[in-house]
């Protein structure tokens, strides 16, 4: 079943035409990744989906409902959480308070408590640091906190923007292992990555973006083998 469907999506930043008729579909239960160079429009797609920017044209359908014109807090309520680029943790608040804000829209304390336990299982480090100001965490811990916080909104679709950005290689491995685990537990994931190698390894389906348009797409395994992708994005001559 198609969970998220983008049709002919167009976004303008002033005079800049950032997305030129992008169509993407995300099947339920899958990990779908958007790869491409800087400025290709990957993050813009996520921002348009979560309502942070208003597309100038096209349709965004989530589970059959149109998201067009809906504000971010409504979209979150529909079951769609966004981990923005640069983690966006609340540096001066404690880890605990950050997590609490993740469950901000929920009114079932019991369910939140259970989901918290799950987050602690995924990220034991986060649990150790509950009372600490989030800004004092390392980059990797902050990323874990950002993902854990988004999970507390209990999303059915999780939008991840560059989760590996600025992390040590070993931590990148950990993050991707966790992404796989979250997916295995039933959350559909739309992942934006510059680290195409890792992204293609973890995703089921992939889209390659170039200057605001889809260049090609297909099963991630196939793309990883394609000469064109290998040359342009995977660093294989």
């Amino acid at each position, binding site marked *: 079943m198609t969970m998220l469907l983008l049709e002919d999506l167009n976004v303008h930043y002033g005079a800049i035409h950032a997305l030129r008729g992008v169509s993407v579909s995300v099947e339920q239960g899958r990990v779908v990744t958007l790869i491409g160079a800087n400025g290709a429009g990957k993050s813009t797609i996520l921002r348009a989906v*979560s309502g*942070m920017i208003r597309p100038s044209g096209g349709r965004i359908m989530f589970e059959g409902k149109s998201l067009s014109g809906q*504000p*971010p*807090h409504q979209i*979150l*309520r529909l079951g769609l*959480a*966004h*981990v*923005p680029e640069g*983690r*966006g*943790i*609340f*540096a*001066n*608040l*404690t880890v605990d*308070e950050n997590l*609490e*804000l*993740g469950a*901000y*829209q*929920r*009114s079932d*304390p019991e369910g939140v408590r259970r989901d918290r336990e799950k987050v602690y299982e995924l990220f034991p*480090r986060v649990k*150790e*640091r*509950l*009372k*600490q100001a989030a800004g*004092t*965490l*390392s*980059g*990797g*811990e902050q990323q874990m906190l*950002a993902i854990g*916080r*988004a999970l507390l*909104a209990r999303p059915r679709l999780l939008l991840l923007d560059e989760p590996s950005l*600025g*992390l*040590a290689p*070993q*931590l990148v491995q950990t993050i991707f292992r966790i992404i796989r685990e979250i997916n295995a537990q039933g959350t559909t994931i739309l992942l934006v990555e510059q680290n195409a190698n890792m992204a293609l390894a973890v995703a089921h389906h992939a889209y390659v973006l170039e200057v605001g348009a889809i260049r090609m797409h297909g099963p991630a395994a196939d793309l990883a083998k394609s000469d064109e992708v290998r040359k342009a994005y995977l660093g294989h001559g």
Partner: protein
Amino acid sequence: MTRVAPQLDDGPAAWRFVPRNLAPLGAALGLALLMHFVFQPAAGSFASKLALDIAVNIILAVSLTMVNGFTGQFSMGTAGFMAVGGYAAAAVTYYGSFRLYGSPNPPAGILSAFGDPTGLPLPWLQSGDLMFVAACLFGGLVAAGAGYIVGLPSLRLRGDYLAIVTLGFGEIVRVVLQTSERRLSNAEQIAGTPWPKLLTHLGGSLGFTSIPYFTTLFWVWLAAVLTLVVAYRMKRSSYGRAFLSIREDEVAAEAMGVCTTKFKVRAFVISSFFAGVAGALIAHQVQSINAGELGFQRSFDVIIMVVLGGMGSISGAVLAAGVLTVLPELLRFMADYRMVVYALALIVMMIVRPQGLFGVREVWEVGPFRRRAAGSGAPGGGAT
């Protein structure tokens, strides 16, 4: 970290920082009575006036903390909201006295009595006091309404628009009030003029004078503590955490489902309310209010308190309000040089501690009061 108030686990559904129990109200009453019946007679009139100014400045600094400190917006309109609240309240008590009692001297109880209250054979409260309280609330509400009108368009945008708009707002308020008609003082004329018309007779460039006296240490400290309670609940409830998330990262706050515009406007309206109440309290202490004296200089005084205390620290704002009220008096012996010293002290402060005395924390969360931090080896712990 130390939590003084119980955690509120309410959802974001509604206004939930209405006091859970009446304990804070009791504390407010207790302190206010203490200030009025014990401090005032013991400390004399100079110290009492200082204590009164401190309380007013606490209200102002804490109310500005709600906007500049909690949501990270930058308002420069405090003086404007004080003027709006002060004039509105003054109009109610002054013209109300004529309407209700036929004279400019409404009956006041012992809580509103000037000087040493203990020796006066007065009842606790009289109907004039209730009119005064209603006037203060009315002043606050009018200021809050003005805050809504100013805030709604300017807070929809990210950035410094609020600073510019509030600066302009303060000037508009000043000019409008200074061009209002002269204050009416003839009882018959007042009785024959409808209320909407009366509200245009605010004294013009002379200011609104002959306002009845009501504001004692009791009322200011009551208002100050209640302001603190509201601010604390805003900071320490799960509902209020949404305000802080906007300051920390507006994009992430939106991603958490916080409707940032709504919360910015709410903080601004609540803040304007308290600034209006403070204006009303001052008007009924000085017995006159002049918009000309409530220019942006007054707003900056309050901004300095908030910045000095630490943007987002309630106790820091309280402390800064106290220090910055007392300091100019302590430096009075330096005559003409005292404002120079005052300015120097602030500059040194900005160099040594640019985040303010307490940053975003509270007094009990820093220094020796703080429990040893949970993860002492924290920052270096994980590879980045």
